[in-house]
């Protein structure tokens, strides 16, 4: 449970499922939206992590 990437992936998945069922009516549209939101959340977080990498961390 302490693996941050697993937790982030689960969080992204839950949000993607929730919003696809909240906002999309058609099953195919829902599936596309779910994949899109999931990948944006996951990819965005990883990209943000890389962008923050050069910044100093408190020791």
């Amino acid at each position, binding site marked *: *449970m*302490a693996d*941050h990437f697993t*937790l*982030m992936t*689960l*969080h992204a998945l*839950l*949000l993607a*499922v*929730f919003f696809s*069922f*909240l906002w999309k*009516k058609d099953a195919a549209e829902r599936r596309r939206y779910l994949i899109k939101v999931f990948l944006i959340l996951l990819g965005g977080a990883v990209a943000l992590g890389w962008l923050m990498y050069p910044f100093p961390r408190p020791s």
Partner: protein
Amino acid sequence: MSSPSVRRTPLPVALLVALAWLFPGLGHALLGRRQRALVFAGVVVVGFAVGLACQGELILPKSGDPLSYFAAVATIGNGILFLLAKLLALGQGIPTATTYEYGNAFLLTAGIMNLLLMLDTYDIAVGKKDW
């Protein structure tokens, strides 16, 4: 865009919205949206349970911490899950735990999702949304 239309609901709209807050997905289930109700209930309950398992905190208003008021709205948005967890003394939060912040994120988003479900229940009940 279609204008809101009057539709028959099994219960008064205010009661439906209150029940939607009480248990995630219940509002949708009472309006006949069983599949969506199951998915919504699953997502919110799993999110809440993971938040507790990660040592997250059920944040309530703290004096001198204005942001805690916003967090409290999200926390209380969890409905019966919040009440049960409080009753069982869960969700005290362990700030030193590695997953504490993740736990908070899961608990807060579960509550916000449930608040959104209340709004969606209202939209369906008053006919603004027909599915």
